[in-house]
């Protein structure tokens, strides 16, 4: 990322949606920005962290999203502006605080950015986080372009400050990561000094008494609706009496615009682009739908607007009574997966009864078949040299020897892929951040009832700090019986190597105070052992001994992420296959090294009839030399200190 304070006001630049959001926060004079990394949101905080020193505010990676939002809310209580950004899962982590914050209200502008991930491209779900606006009566803003990201971020702060309430801004993968021309505005000359007047009854940020404050919360939403209508966030384009109006938000606005062109229906179809979606913009909806014959809703993930508009329209009666509605509910658009211009165009054409298709019949099937013949199969997998591959190998081997059908409760990070072949399918359940420890905590109580399978929880270092710690405290308290394996690769690797409490570095790359895994666990009174996953035999023995002994134990498998190691000068070995030792198909192992171990740096050379190292891909970690029964995998540079 880069220092966004260096942009010149009035001069257009190409910015990613997330960068535009960050620049908007800078122009709004944000005093504290906090986040937990997670695609597709990470670049917002990264950009702000790179700009924090220049702009003179605080930016941090927080231990989790809830802490991030609480920190942002705190500065709002003190009268300055706060921002918390996260992916959709993070909103769930914050939910308890959000519902109480919505009642207490706030003072300085306070914005929560959720970046939702249609199709779950880099997520474990494709949740629509807009639900939080409906649940907690919070204003919801949905930009469609990077330029809108900048402008609406500034507006969100203003709106928040105007009504004394948290404002939710929703981005999407497609918007957060797309680049477009954005013209930055001016940065503020200064920002107010934070101060919280304890004597001011209006600055008592609490939820009690609930009922009157709940009433105020409702009033704030109503006020927000009025202000958003005045701000002209929502625009209509098209004929005055259209056959159909597309109601769209977010990146679907662009898809809808493109779809109207593709179907050549500009004269028949209007587009109502909604950027302020909650509370429902009733005025413009009433105005534009009254003259339409049908409505097609285009929005990502859930039919949020669609459902609310239909409920609202049912109450209106009159001119809206005869409207026909199309969208996800009637199957015009798919309920799951990301939308595309083609999908919206097809839905539009169907709704209009127009013959249109993006491609000729059977094209997709033919294209798929062709690609299958041309492209090699590529499975989702750990990187070459990834310590997680070695860790799951050791877990697999140790639990197999133990022989009691051990269960592995997984968590969120690169190692989530442990449930796939790359992790030898050794993860038996995975849900959300920290839940692996909680699930293990429950399983670890079943022994007296005859559950004789050993239980292992696997969690990454960053995730451990995020949400694992309370579950471990619970397990210790209630004397649960499981082995916690912390895969410490010294980074929040899956989201882009952000630092975490264990690394001791802050978001700006400055030295913070490291929170050491061992000391945290030892402080709970737990036995802690540390092993290097690259040493397969020692790691297997450590896991085996721990599960045989039973009881709540912690094993830290420590080895820096292979990609991080690559940036630090790489791994020590140059791997090669000894052609005299590799037995090829006569080995009897049926390509054990490439077929089972599955490191991308190791493959079977059909022509040569033996294993081979892909020198472009192999990073030289040396782990694979431990698995060949013939000792045919050689590590040149052996004896040099491993990094």
């Amino acid at each position: 990322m880069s220092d966004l304070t260096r942009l010149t006001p009035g001069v257009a630049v190409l910015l990613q949606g997330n960068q535009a959001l960050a620049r908007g926060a800078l122009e709004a004079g944000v005093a504290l920005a906090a986040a937990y990394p997670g695609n597709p949101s990470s670049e917002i905080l990264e950009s702000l962290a790179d700009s924090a020193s220049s702009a003179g505010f605080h930016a941090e990676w927080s231990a989790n999203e809830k802490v991030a939002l609480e920190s942002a809310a705190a500065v709002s209580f003190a009268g300055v502006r706060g921002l918390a950004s996260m992916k959709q899962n993070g909103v769930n982590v914050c939910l308890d605080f959000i519902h109480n914050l919505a009642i207490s209200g706030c003072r300085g502008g306070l914005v929560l950015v959720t970046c939702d991930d249609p199709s779950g491209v880099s997520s474990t779900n494709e949740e629509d986080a807009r639900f939080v606006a409906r649940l907690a009566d919070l204003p919801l803003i949905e930009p469609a372009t990077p330029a809108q990201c900048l402008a609406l971020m500034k507006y969100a702060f203003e709106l928040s400050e105007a009504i004394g309430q948290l404002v939710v801004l929703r981005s999407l993968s497609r918007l957060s990561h797309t680049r477009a021309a954005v013209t930055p505005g001016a940065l503020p000359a200064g920002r107010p000094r934070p101060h919280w007047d304890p004597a001011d009854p209006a600055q008592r940020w609490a939820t009690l008494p609930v009922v009157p404050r709940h009433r105020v919360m409702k009033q704030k939403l109503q006020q927000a609706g009025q202000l958003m209508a005045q701000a002209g966030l929502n625009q209509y384009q098209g004929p005055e009496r259209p056959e159909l109006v597309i109601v769209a938000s977010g990146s679907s606005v662009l898809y809808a615009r493109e779809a109207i062109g593709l179907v050549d229906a500009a004269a028949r179809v209007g587009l109502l682009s909604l950027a302020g979606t909650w509370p429902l913009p009733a005025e413009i909806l009433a105005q534009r739908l009254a003259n339409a014959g049908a409505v097609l809703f285009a929005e990502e993930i859930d039919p949020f607007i669609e459902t609310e508009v239909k409920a609202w329209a049912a109450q209106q009666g009159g001119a809206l009574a005869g409207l026909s509605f199309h969208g996800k509910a009637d199957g015009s658009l798919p309920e799951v997966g990301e939308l595309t211009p083609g999908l919206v165009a097809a839905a539009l054409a169907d709704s209009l009864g127009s013959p249109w298709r993006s491609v000729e019949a059977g094209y997709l099937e033919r294209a798929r078949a062709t690609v299958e013949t041309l492209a090699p199969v590529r499975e989702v997998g750990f990187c070459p040299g990834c310590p997680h591959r070695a860790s799951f190998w050791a877990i697999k081997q140790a639990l197999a020897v133990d022989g009691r059908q051990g269960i592995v409760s997984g968590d969120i990070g690169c190692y989530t892929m442990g449930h796939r072949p790359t992790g030898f399918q050794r993860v038996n359940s995975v849900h959300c951040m920290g839940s692996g420890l909680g699930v293990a905590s429950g399983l670890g109580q079943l022994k007296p009832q005859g559950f004789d399978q050993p239980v292992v929880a696997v969690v990454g270092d960053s995730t451990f700090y995020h949400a694992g710690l309370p579950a471990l405290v619970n397990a210790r308290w209630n004397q649960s019986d499981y082995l916690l394996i912390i895969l410490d690769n010294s980074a929040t690797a899956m989201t882009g190597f952000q630092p975490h409490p264990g690394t001791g570095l802050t978001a700006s790359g400055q030295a913070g105070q490291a929170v050491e895994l061992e000391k945290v666990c030892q402080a709970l009174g737990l036995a802690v052992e540390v092993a290097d996953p690259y040493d397969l035999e020692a790691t297997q023995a450590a896991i085996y001994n721990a599960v045989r002994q039973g009881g709540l134990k912690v094993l830290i498998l420590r080895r820096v992420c292979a990609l991080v190691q690559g940036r630090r000068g790489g791994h020590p070995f140059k791997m090669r296959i000894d052609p005299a030792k590799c037995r090829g198909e006569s080995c009897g192992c049926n390509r054990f090294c490439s077929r089972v171990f599955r490191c991308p740096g190791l493959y079977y050379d059909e022509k040569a009839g033996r294993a081979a190292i892909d020198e472009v891909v192999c990073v030289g970690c040396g782990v694979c030399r431990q698995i060949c029964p013939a000792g045919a995998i050689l590590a040149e540079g052996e004896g040099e200190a491993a990094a």
Partner: protein
Amino acid sequence: MASSPAVAPAPPPGGGLARLRAEVLDPGLCVACGACLGICPHLIFHDGRVAAPDACGLDSGRCLDLCPQAIAPGPEARRQELAQASDAPWWPELGPVRQAVWARATAADLVGQVQYGGVVSTLAALALELGLVGEMVLTQAGLDGAPEGARVTDRAGVLAAGGSIYAAGAGLMQVNQALASDESHPLGLVGLPCQAWGARALRAHPNYPAARRLQLVIGLFCTLNLDLRRLRAVLDQAGVDQPILRADFPPPPAGVLELTLPGGLRQIPLDDIRPTVLAGCALCPDLSAEAADLSVGAAEGQAGWNTVLVRSAVGEKLWAEALARGLVEIQPLPEETRGHLLGAAQAKRQRGLMAGKERRHV
């Protein structure tokens, strides 16, 4: 002594690892002889247990072919083949027997230091000294007390491995690993009846020419073998300091397992030990390691002596040399003892064969 074997699921088509798992590993009938280990990375051994973490994807393999616990060819067929191949007198209860005597070692450093009469250690050391074999594979206690195969090349190595702890040690894994090396010298093995049968399968396997290097098998009498982990749990419960240096089943009516520990002797009642017997041992019909070149066991009622059965020409040659050098002294096997031995062997045979039939019919 062992509990009835678990029900075996219907075997998958073909052979190889999948079938080994279905027939032997998954039902818990593996006795950790080690025949399948050391030839393929899909099978691993740790702490007395064999496991196959991954599917190998092949429909045939030596792992199944060599396993004495596999359903096919079965102990009866194997025994018939041995009877046809052997030119020694055939004892219905004990297999091929050229000589049957009581014996004990004469070397001062063996008396009282190794188990029973010290004959096994004497013969193993002599085989190395004669160059009959260049390496002997024995079973010894590892650093953590778990038995493991050990490759030794001299008398000191043999003495270091003296004594038994009656737990599975997968000694044939070391044989396979030795066979995979670049060495060409003959190998010897000291092993249990299951291992002697595994060794015979190794030597006869058409796709294992290197196994012809295995020239000598000294078999051990065996009535049972123990699951190390279950034994450890029993001993933990009994407050026994581990590791165990040696374990003996003194002849009846002792009714105990006698443990030699760093701190002295300790006896555990047999009733406590029975639950730790490997389930797969119930399938074994062989008391005296019939497939070995010589077999050695404790001499009933004669402390400090061994019963020795000389079976093959190779065994006879080694035995003759031991006698000629005065390394062992012998006395005739008393008729009464011989009767007890035959009875015990016959009883074990019947139990094992019956268990095998039940296994095939489930």
